[in-house]
């Protein structure tokens, strides 16, 4: 139980800041919608398209990926820099358990972050913006955010086992999603595999038929979700293997 407490204490600042960013984004969207929706230049714009553009589309998936990757930082390499690794590793606990608890805590935080808009948007839309937004839509976007968010978290987690420095890990978490997104946008290599393009996948673009309403109206691809789940597991397993062999 105390390992969970430790994992929470070590990640809570990053988690609360991330939740704060998401909540502020959702509330500010609702506030803007209250007075500025529909925009004068697009009086026929559906509210779902407004929500998509401001929460699920554009640069927001990249911001989300950066936030969850930063959640993956910390761990034993960081503890080595701060001098607490020897204390942690002298506890009668296996490295596997140390990592498993931290990973589970991080994935739970990713889940909360991914589904925070699903709670906030349908609830706040009628209250603040006097609009309605379908809970099922929000939940489906939540699933897409969780799938890629888990992969991103596990990559951040893997990096945390390679780089102990605060700056290196953070810089990688900020730069790599932007570079990857730019690469995917310019490269045609993975065009047949939309699940590999996080920005497109999380925005739900492959599952949206009506570009005006911008609502998910195709079933979510279970195979792709499974592949992303496997990728998450693979990155976490690699991190565990690395930590198992490392000296502190």
């Amino acid at each position, binding site marked *: 139980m*105390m390992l969970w407490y*430790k994992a929470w204490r070590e990640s809570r600042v990053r988690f609360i800041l991330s939740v704060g960013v998401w909540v502020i984004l959702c509330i500010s969207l609702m506030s803007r919608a209250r007075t500025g929706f529909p925009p004068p230049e697009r009086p026929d714009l559906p509210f779902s398209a407004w929500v998509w553009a401001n929460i699920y589309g554009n640069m927001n998936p990249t911001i989300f990926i950066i936030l969850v990757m930063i959640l993956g930082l910390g761990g034993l390499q960081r503890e080595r820099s*701060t001098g607490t690794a*020897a204390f942690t590793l*002298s*506890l*009668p*606990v296996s*490295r596997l358990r140390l990592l498993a608890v931290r990973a589970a805590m991080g994935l739970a935080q990713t889940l909360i972050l991914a589904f925070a808009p699903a709670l906030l948007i349908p609830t706040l839309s009628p209250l603040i913006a006097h609009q309605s937004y379908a809970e099922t839509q929000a939940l489906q976007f939540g699933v897409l955010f969780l799938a890629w968010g888990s992969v991103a978290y596990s990559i951040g987690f893997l990096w945390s086992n390679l780089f102990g420095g605060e700056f290196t890990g953070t810089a990688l978490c900020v730069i790599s999603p932007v570079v990857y997104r730019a690469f995917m946008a310019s490269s045609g290599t993975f065009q047949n595999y939309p699940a590999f393009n996080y920005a497109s996948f999380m925005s739900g673009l492959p599952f949206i038929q009506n570009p005006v309403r911008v609502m998910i109206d195709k079933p979510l691809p279970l195979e792709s979700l499974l592949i992303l789940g496997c990728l998450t597991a693979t990155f976490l397993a690699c991190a565990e293997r690395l930590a198992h062999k490392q000296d502190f």
Partner: protein
Amino acid sequence: MTPDPVIETHNLTKQYGRFKAVSNLDMRIGGGRITGFLGRNGAGKSTTIKMLLGISRPTSGTGTLLGRSIGDSSECRKSRERVAYVAEDKQTYGYMTVAQLIAFTRSFYTDWDIDSERRLLRQFALPLTRKVSALSKGMRTKLALLLALSRHSQLLILDEPSEGLDPVSIEELLQALVTAAADGTAVFFSSHQIAEVERVADHVCIIDHGRLVADTSLEEIRQDYRRITFGFATAAPPLQFSNPFVRSVQTDGRQVTVVAVRNSNDVIECGRGFGASTVESTPVSLREVFLSAVKEDIHDALV
């Protein structure tokens, strides 16, 4: 019958690139006593301790801690249940308060003694509500010691435990080590402070350049180790001792000083045979043993 060793290593080696931090270390530490682990900075003391606890992996060689293999992660974890450890830098989680850290650590051990915890809290005057990051270096050391000494562990491993402590706290620490040993806990502690080791240890292991250069009991040093000074009427002849217990020979004008680790009478007879007119035999301090062992090692390395 020799009691089971609490620590045993065979050819234990730790190599970082081409640098050998610990080299073919063969060591056997018996239970029920206080063993001082001496060595200069970078001699390999902390690396050895980290390998014993599974914090670092040996490059080669084997070892056991409380009878369990240090090469097996699962065995190592089980042995850590019965070992209390104070790391060299004494860093613990700065974001927790003293009370939170004690509660955190207590939850992992079944041998935790709440009375010892309360007694040490009073003794060390640690502020329960203060964050660890706000503690002074000395206070952090006391906290690390409290976490280790509040248990009925089978083995207590301390890496430079007195570093950062004031003289009164050092005194309390040494007393605590003696009490722990009297209660049946084996104590293995590294230190630069030879006087501390000499005061409380029953046994010393000296490591230099990653190799064990001395492994002896304090009793043996007091009884058997002798510094023998031979005086000659003219310039001292070059003395060649075939006695394997002669540790060092130093010639200074008409005087030759020999450190013998055993059979000093034979060495005295031998010196007289060389024509020494005066002979003076005095006990050797641990400090001299340490310096002699380390200097010899430097000499061997150079040769």
